[in-house]
């Protein structure tokens, strides 16, 4: 079967979210870089694939698919029988709880953590002034969410139950940046169960591979 094509820079959280799933499912892929600095994602060739001008995009035969979380769901379903089993649970009820925590990531974890990552890790690099009021607001929002996660993970090894799922996977990219690049790692490390969960999921082969690829890329 021909390899799927994933368009996007590895540094993009959405791109690494999709790639993590491809790696968990052991799907053959080609990672095609997109140069965000040169605004390649806003050029006609890219917009023809993704009209919102955002990364990543997946091409699988005749199907062109965007939105990283949709790509994750599609890959987990299509390749359910290979790679890491159980990413979508073993029953409809298990899947439902996985979807619930994926939505929590999408609607409650992602907005404040993305904001903090952008402001604290990237804004200065790109000459954009930091907004301290908004940083404080988002840190509070993120902390409040993490308190709920702490309680949940004190009762459950992974977010949706006893097994690693796409719900945990979805959290990898933002959390990596929070811990490594914002100076706010203690948001994660100060919470016993959140920290244990983070240490666990980020030591998976798939995420180790993405870290290796990132390091190799940054040495060029």
């Amino acid at each position, binding site marked *: 079967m021909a390899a799927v094509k994933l368009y996007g820079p590895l540094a993009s959280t959405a791109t690494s979210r999709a790639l993590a799933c491809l790696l968990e499912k052991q799907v053959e892929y080609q990672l095609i870089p997109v140069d965000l600095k040169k605004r390649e994602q806003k050029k006609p060739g890219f917009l023809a694939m993704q*009209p*919102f001008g955002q990364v990543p995009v997946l091409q699988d035969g*005749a*199907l062109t*698919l*965007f*939105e990283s*979380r*949709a790509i994750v*769901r*599609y890959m987990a*379903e*299509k390749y359910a029988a290979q790679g890491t089993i159980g990413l979508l649970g073993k029953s*409809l*009820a298990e*899947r*439902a*709880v996985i*979807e*619930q925590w*994926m*939505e*929590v990531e*999408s*609607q*409650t974890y992602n*907005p404040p953590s993305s904001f903090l990552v952008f402001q604290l890790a990237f804004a200065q690099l790109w000459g954009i002034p930091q907004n301290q009021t908004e940083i404080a607001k988002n840190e509070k929002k993120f902390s409040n*969410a993490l308190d*709920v996660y702490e*309680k*949940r993970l004190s009762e459950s090894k992974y977010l949706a139950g006893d097994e690693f799922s796409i719900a945990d996977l979805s959290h990898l990219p933002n959390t990596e940046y929070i811990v490594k690049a914002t100076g706010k790692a203690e948001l994660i490390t100060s919470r016993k169960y959140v920290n244990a969960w983070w240490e666990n999921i980020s030591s998976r082969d798939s995420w180790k591979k993405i870290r290796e690829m990132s390091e190799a890329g940054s040495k060029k």
Partner: protein
Amino acid sequence: MAAIKVHGFHASTATNMVLCCLNEKQVEYDFVLIDLLTGAHKKPQYLALNPFGVVPTIQDGDLTLFESRAILRYLAQKFKGQGTDLLGSTLSEEALVYQWCEVEGQSFNPPVSTIVSQILVVPRRGGSTDEAAVEMNIEKLGKVLDIYEERLSKSKYLAGDFFSLADLQHLPHTHYLVSACGKGDLISSRKHVNAWWEDISSRPTWQKVAENMKVN
């Protein structure tokens, strides 16, 4: 079999998304009012069901589930054999449904919910509408709707030629935008978006829900 319990609030867009889906799937339910105006959603009894203290939450037998979009996917999968098919007929069609569901959640919802919140909710809580925030989000929403216009000029519904969860997710906020915020021109000025809106909002399953969303 016990009916599904929906804990929600009649004016909540997320609650109404779920009620519309239950109607589409022809599933009976019991509605349990969580009165946001009295802070019922932050009381221990409700937090035991949903630790984030937001509506809606459903109970289906042993399963307690929150996040409206996750509830939608659960209902669409569990009741696949009855009512409207909301996930397409192939894996590829389903993938496109998920894609446009994500677009709603990531690109449509943030600006539209800010507009609706500023115009409808903030004044009712004793605050005043941040007009600059409204203008900024109208512009953002306009850009998103321009892309929808292009898409809907080639496709009857968002994911293809079939009504799906992706279209359904847009109903509650667009309803408020058009009928209670006075921003209907955002929709009516775009030919294909307008036709799509007229179509999906005229579904009887939606009209039943919309009746309970009248804003005084």
